[in-house]
């Protein structure tokens, strides 16, 4: 607290009776600091006048309150207060570079406005202001973490999210592409679209979601109100909105159960996958979106969601979770048949048909396609949104679809799973009976093969089980037991959940300075990243590279940087990160030659970032570029880039420290020891201060632990050179 000293002196002096005594005390206490003494004396002298001033101000406040209440009544006054609560902003207000034009709508967690953006380009946007209650910094940090991935999405059926920031009063906001449209279910019903037209829209949505999934982005909140249909030259175009927002807000179950003033549910849990229903589940992945798509398809077909939203929440959270986890919803055609006749007729009429014909249309393929997307066990759902779309297209082309009614065996297995205890006893008896029937060699071999398959599946299931347990432990920050659980687990299948666990464990070891173990866990993480084929693992490379270099594992670091280049042959992705992490330690001419295309791509991307005003990325790219120039020996350029990095308004402490270090290294080579020393000094302070205490994980905005680690590695080089 800056004013603590002033306050202490002020308070003590105020208690003193005589002016002389006060003066003496202040003389003594302030010593040489003449300015301080004068300030305190001025404050003391202001005392009585200040009281009068505030008393008059308070009277004005009381007067305004009184007239507010006499004109609007108490309730009206309270309503006025609530209208001024964060989240609600008066029309005309400027929020960053956006001016609010009108309110478009309001949901449980935010208010959406149409707004006008003034620069760098003039355009209309939708501005969603999140109501009070979210921790603004972490919402923005989570958004920033995904920003690069979000920016890579480019699809006509996805509305762009441009920007996130904090309003002056605190709550975060998101600026996104303005979509003037109707939510998809309303659009279909208003225009009485038949089943094929509905399926056509649905396939487009699947393709949009697939595009996002390929970029590593999970929507997490797919539901009709997040899919708007707009008309382009008379053609209906669905647009998926709110990408990245659900994740930034860490939307959880409870948020989906918000109620409005008249008791209506907002964002019902009806679109939520069983795994989303399990609170504390950290591993919401693309398959959760597939489930939500399944619910959407179900509703487009049968006019109802698989579970009635009201019934879902009627008996408490546990009952709801159990329903989502265990109860199989009726097939769409059956659901339709169960509706009261009037509702069934209305539903069919909205699809330009009658109930009997509609049921016949849904029976078979469409029933099973919806049910496959809605599988409880996510491994049994469609692997991808594309797979779901392809099955719909096959159906439309009268080709056989991949979704099938569950076989008798499958249903039997499910029965066993549900009643394990009962079957444990009975199973032994059955086995004895089968054995007694006598088997041919062929049958025996068949069985052995099946057994092998079974063992493999079992092993995999065990690994997954372990991962799920470990994920839970990690989410409660019980790192040590989680670590013990997965230390020797190996994976042949991608697991997003597993990647999250290994990332957390790697970070845990790193923040406790156990570099070798950290490198092992992060190595497994990179392995899992590779299995998954995600293109957003470049941050994980920063983690591993920093740990290897800091731990002094030079051989490991060499192997790592060669592997990183193989992993990212496409220089258009994450070029700045690849450059930075591969050049953390000096490189030979061969490696420099390999890195040249990345440097070129980085310089081009930097220019684009500058043009679009993305200062955050531009500054990072300038930093990488300066390191590249330094390593290849162009010290003048290195100085220029480092200074450019430091000149961005957008500040980030570890980045600035790193740029100072490159500056120091380059200036020394140029024979400017004074400049070099000054830059070294500027970097040293913050880095040493950072590592004096325990290492924190950090955030994208303030910098991550590995950003600091990179800076420290370079500090050693700069200080030792």
């Amino acid at each position, binding site marked *: *607290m*800056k*004013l603590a000293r*002033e*306050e202490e002196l002020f*308070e003590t002096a105020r208690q003193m009776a005589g002016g002389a005594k006060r003066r003496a005390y202040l003389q003594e206490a302030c010593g040489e600091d003449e*300015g301080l003494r*004068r*300030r305190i*004396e*001025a*404050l*003391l*002298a*202001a*005392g009585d006048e*200040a009281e009068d*001033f*505030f008393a008059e*101000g308070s*009277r*004005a*406040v*009381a*007067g*305004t*309150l*009184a007239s*507010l209440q006499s004109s609007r*009544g*108490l*309730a*009206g006054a*309270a*309503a*006025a*207060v*609530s*209208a*001024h*609560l*964060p*989240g609600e902003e008066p029309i005309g207000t400027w929020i960053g570079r956006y001016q609010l034009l009108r309110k478009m709508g309001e949901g449980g*967690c935010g208010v959406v406005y149409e707004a006008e953006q003034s620069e760098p380009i003039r355009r209309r946007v939708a501005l969603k202001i999140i*109501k009070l*209650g*979210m921790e603004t910094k972490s919402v923005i940090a989570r958004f920033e973490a995904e920003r690069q991935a979000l920016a890579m999405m480019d699809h006509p059926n996805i509305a762009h999210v441009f920007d996130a920031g904090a309003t002056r*009063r605190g709550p975060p906001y998101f600026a996104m592409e303005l979509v003037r449209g109707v939510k998809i279910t309303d659009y279909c019903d208003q225009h009485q679209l038949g089943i094929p037209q509905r399926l056509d829209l649905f396939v487009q949505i699947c393709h949009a979601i697939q595009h996002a999934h390929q970029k590593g982005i999970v929507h997490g909140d797919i539901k009709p109100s997040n899919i708007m249909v707009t008309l382009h030259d008379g053609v209906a175009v669905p647009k998926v909105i709110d990408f990245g927002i659900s994740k930034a807000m860490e939307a*959880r*179950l*409870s*948020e989906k*159960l*918000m*109620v409005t003033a008249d008791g209506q549910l907002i964002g019902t849990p009806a679109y939520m996958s069983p795994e989303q229903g399990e*609170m*504390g589940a950290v591993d919401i992945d693309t398959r959760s979106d597939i489930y939500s798509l399944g619910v959407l398809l179900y509703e487009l077909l049968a006019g109802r969601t698989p579970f009635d939203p009201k019934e879902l*929440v009627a008996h*408490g*959270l546990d009952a709801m979770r159990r329903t989502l986890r265990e109860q199989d919803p009726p097939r769409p055609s059956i659901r339709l048949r169960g509706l009261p006749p009037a509702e069934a007729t209305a539903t069919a009429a909205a699809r330009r048909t009658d109930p009997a014909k509609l049921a016949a249309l849904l029976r078979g393929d469409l029933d099973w396609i919806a049910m496959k997307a809605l599988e409880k066990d996510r491994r049994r759902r469609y692997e991808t949104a594309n797979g779901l779309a392809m099955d719909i297209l096959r159906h439309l082309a009268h080709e056989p679809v991949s979704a099938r009614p569950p076989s008798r065996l499958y249903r039997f297995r499910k029965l066993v799973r549900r009643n394990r205890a009962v079957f444990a006893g009975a199973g032994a008896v059955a086995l004895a009976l089968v054995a007694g029937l006598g088997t041919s060699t062929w049958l025996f071999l068949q069985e052995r093969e099946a057994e092998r398959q079974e063992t493999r599946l079992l092993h995999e299931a065990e690994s997954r089980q372990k991962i799920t347990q470990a994920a839970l432990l990690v989410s409660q920050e019980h790192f040590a037991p989680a670590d013990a659980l997965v230390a020797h687990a190996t994976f042949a299948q991608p697991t997003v959940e597993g990647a999250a666990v290994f990332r957390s464990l790697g970070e845990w070891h790193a923040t406790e300075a156990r570099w070798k173990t950290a490198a092992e866990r992060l190595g497994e993480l990179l392995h899992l990243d590779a299995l998954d084929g995600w293109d957003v693992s470049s941050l994980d490379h920063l983690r591993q590279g920093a740990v290897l270099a800091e731990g002094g594992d030079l051989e490991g670091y060499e192997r790592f940087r060669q592997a990183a280049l193989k992993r990212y042959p496409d220089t258009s992705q994450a070029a700045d990160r690849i450059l930075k992490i591969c050049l953390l330690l000096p490189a030979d001419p061969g490696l420099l030659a390999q890195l040249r295309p990345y440097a070129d791509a980085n310089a081009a991307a930097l220019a684009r970032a500058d043009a679009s005003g993305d200062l955050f990325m531009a500054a990072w790219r300038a930093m990488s570029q300066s390191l590249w120039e330094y390593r290849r020996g162009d010290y003048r350029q290195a100085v220029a880039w480092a200074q450019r990095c430091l000149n961005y308004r957008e500040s980030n402490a570890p980045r600035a420290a790193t740029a100072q270090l490159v500056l120091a290294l380059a200036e020394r080579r140029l024979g400017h020891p004074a400049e070099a020393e000054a830059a070294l000094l500027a970097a040293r302070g913050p880095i040493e201060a950072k590592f004096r205490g325990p290492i924190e994980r950090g955030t994208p905005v303030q910098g991550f632990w590995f950003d600091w680690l990179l800076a420290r590695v370079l500090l050693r080089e700069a200080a030792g050179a």
Partner: protein
Amino acid sequence: MTDITLMLDAVGRGEASPSADLLPLVYDELRRCAAVRMSRESPGQTMQPTAMVHEAWLRVSGGVRERRWQNRAHFFGAAVEAMRRILIESARRKSRLKRGGGQIRLELNELELAGSSPDEKVLMIDEALERLETADPEKARIVALKFFGGRTSREVADLLGVTERTVERHWAFAKAWLFQCIRAELGSERPGPGPVGFDGPNRA
């Protein structure tokens, strides 16, 4: 109410974060009771609108078994900020009327200390408070709660988890600091030692 209860249960078990999950409910509750009050309000009743917001908060959060979260202060702070905006908007409007109503925004340096109306004093305090928010956020919070929120020192102390004495002490200092800041900003004459060397607030 079953949905609220459902949620509160989740909060009680620590499964939902109260700030994120409860506040929207508070707003809804507030709107709901504003409507109810509207219909059966007795004239001459004097209740702070912020107190009404508090009441709504307590009604919603009262069902939770433990008081396990620290967001009360956060929420009250927001209600007071809302109140502050209303008061400032009103003070601006009145000051503009007094000055012929042409101006969009009244700049502080166009005012003078001696001839300022009570409403203009409110505006000056508001602007100076913004500076205090940067210099010492905790004291600024106390000023906002007391001056704009009309809360007593006792209430502020409870809210922030400090002693009443601390609130009083901060309040006394903050008033002198803010006043001195306003005076330095306006460059008016003052008796005794003055803004020379007074570098608390930045001069615009």
